């Protein structure tokens, strides 16, 4: 696909043309600023383009959902963010939101309704699964065929919102060997970044949580660790590096597997 045809429409542009998108792609702070995670945003844009989805992003009108502020206990900052975002979303009359971040997903889906923001919010794992089932996204194993992949459940997707199968189903399409870590699904182990821990040093202890988790991932000797969350990606990536395994074990987001297999 030539790069000129890549569409990244903003809500402002669409509404100026009097159009409305089928879905809003909520990029999130990590998706916008984090160098590693921007690749996930790009992968999502490629997939949405390829599948010919009528989507839009908010661009500079998007702001932090407030999740880390709320988890850190600062309800005022959280609700200020929520009120601003809800105003923007409601002004554009947004109905459907897709996001790659489980924290944005949880907040938009579960916490905004009480503050006046009611949307149909879907995490990208579920959305990708849907596109695959509808035949809008097609891919084979590609470079992942026969490789060992282990999926790390993020707490805010799994335990918090009961999404365990969608990410696994997406990975199954890769013709790869899916291996589970000792602690998985509802018993999965946190990467250590949730609850705003991403933004401060851990308290004193004998180990970092992400090291404990990465150790478990390394133990199943995967070629890839699959994640569906920006924080998990950072934490698992650092953990794998800690064991000097970053050459053998790559950490990829679900969307990156699809893009890789499809050679987009």
């Amino acid at each position, binding site marked *: 696909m030539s790069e000129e045809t890549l569409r990244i429409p903003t809500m402002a542009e669409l509404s100026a043309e009097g159009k409305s998108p089928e879905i809003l792609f909520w990029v999130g702070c990590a998706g916008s600023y984090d160098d590693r995670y921007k690749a996930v945003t790009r992968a999502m844009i490629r997939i949405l383009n390829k599948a010919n989805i009528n989507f839009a992003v908010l661009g500079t009108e998007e702001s932090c959902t407030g999740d880390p502020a709320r988890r850190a206990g600062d309800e005022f900052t959280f*609700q200020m963010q929520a009120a601003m975002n809800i105003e923007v979303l409601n002004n554009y009359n947004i109905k459907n939101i897709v996001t790659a971040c489980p924290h944005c997903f949880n907040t938009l889906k579960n916490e905004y309704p009480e503050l006046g923001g009611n949307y149909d919010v879907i995490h990208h794992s579920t959305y990708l699964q849907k596109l695959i089932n509808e035949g809008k996204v097609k891919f084979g194993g590609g470079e992942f065929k026969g490789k060992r992949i282990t999926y790390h459940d993020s707490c805010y997707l799994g335990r918090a919102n009961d999404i365990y199968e969608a990410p696994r189903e997406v990975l199954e399409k890769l013709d790869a060997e899916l291996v589970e870590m000792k602690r998985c699904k509802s018993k999965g182990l946190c990467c250590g970044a949730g609850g705003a821990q991403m933004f401060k040093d851990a308290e004193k202890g004998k180990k*970092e949580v992400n090291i404990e988790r990465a150790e478990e991932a390394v133990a199943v000797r995967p070629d890839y660790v699959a994640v569906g969350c920006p924080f998990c990606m950072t934490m698992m990536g650092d953990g794998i590096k800690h064991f000097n395994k970053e050459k053998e074990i790559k950490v990829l987001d679900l969307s990156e597997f699809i893009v890789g297999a499809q050679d987009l």
Partner: protein
Amino acid sequence: MLFVTALLVTAGVIFSRYKYIRRNIELGKSWKGEHNPAERLRLMILIAFGQKKMFARPFVGLMHFVIYAGFLLINIEILEIVIDGITGHHRIFAPLFGATIYQILIGFFELLALGVLTTCIIFLIRRNIVKVERFDKPEMKGWAHLDANLILIFEIVLMFFLFTMNATDSILQMRATDLVNNMDAAHYKVFENTPVRFLVSQALIPLYDGLTTTQLVLLERAAWWFHIVGIMGFAIYVTYSKHLHIFLAFPNVYFTRLQPKGEMNNMPSITKEVKITMGMEEPAADAGMEDEIPSFGAKDVTDLTWRNILDAYTCTQCGRCTDVCPANMTGKKLSPRKIVMNVRQRADEIGQRMDEMGEYYKPDDKMLYGDYVTKEELMACTSCNACVEACPVNINPLEPILEMRRYVAMEEADVPDAWKAMLTNVGNNGAPWAFAPTERFKWADEMKNQ
């Protein structure tokens, strides 16, 4: 007469304990869960009655189930003992069922009792000799440790008396057919010409067979009394112990928080403030006139909801929550079990003080946060919900943690510096990192220019 008095005293003590615990639970703020009785009932049947979550560890689950089933069914036997005690009959159910069925029934109970006995011994060994890690955490020293052992020993002793009672009774019944005129004989002559022996206790018969009839009667009566008074004592003891879960597990599971686990409770008072700040709502005319300034988050148990305190009184201190806590397993001070135990300790402390001081009650200067729970513990939580998922009786240790964090952040403004920076960034730049909001869409340009 003596028996009825004992029964009444027990009932009285239990009732006053019930009132005390209920009052302590009601120290909490109001809570109204989602109205969904069908789902609540389903959870209660599955998780409290059916013990579903206990079978996450099949072997321990099975052993616990033996004790549980034993407890449930032996109540029928206790009912008989209580009726016998009140009316002065002996084995009043026996003629009702007929010798064979009665023998099978009691035999079945004895089998359960044997199961309870064995399991309790295994549990004692596991707790004290094998050293399971989760029973060995700092919060499990002292009373918590003693409590767990006491209850196991209690149950073993009770079961032993039960077997002794049944074994001596069997011998007496055998002799009763020969000693028709004796008063005791008449008492023990439950079945015409068919003395019964029971499945398990008959093994003890050779042990007591050498005793005289008088000695046997004494021993049987003593065992009977110890058994039933023991059970009464047990019932009272339970209200002071972690074993309160045998009753509270049911209401507690019924009042499970049904929202998605990731959803943090809203704070409507702040919603109002935010709307005023954003000019979406006028401040109330009497603003500033109210003498009570609302406080944010939880500093003491009275700031938590009654559901949180019910949780705390239900806790078995099994440590399954702490076992799966990522903070705890990596050596941080946080232990969700300890937080839950602290809530109960603090509620008890306030409750006792209220009872001692009566209408002159004055709050003490202690608080849940600060005196029981430290900031270091609270700050280590990743809100991963593993503890909530793991608790076999649906306790939620995360809620009080997050409420106390709100207190730290909003009342004390005392969160770690890195969080202060993050919060400023979110407030000023709309992102937790210090990037300009205008840069937010740069990724798109980068992508187009690739």
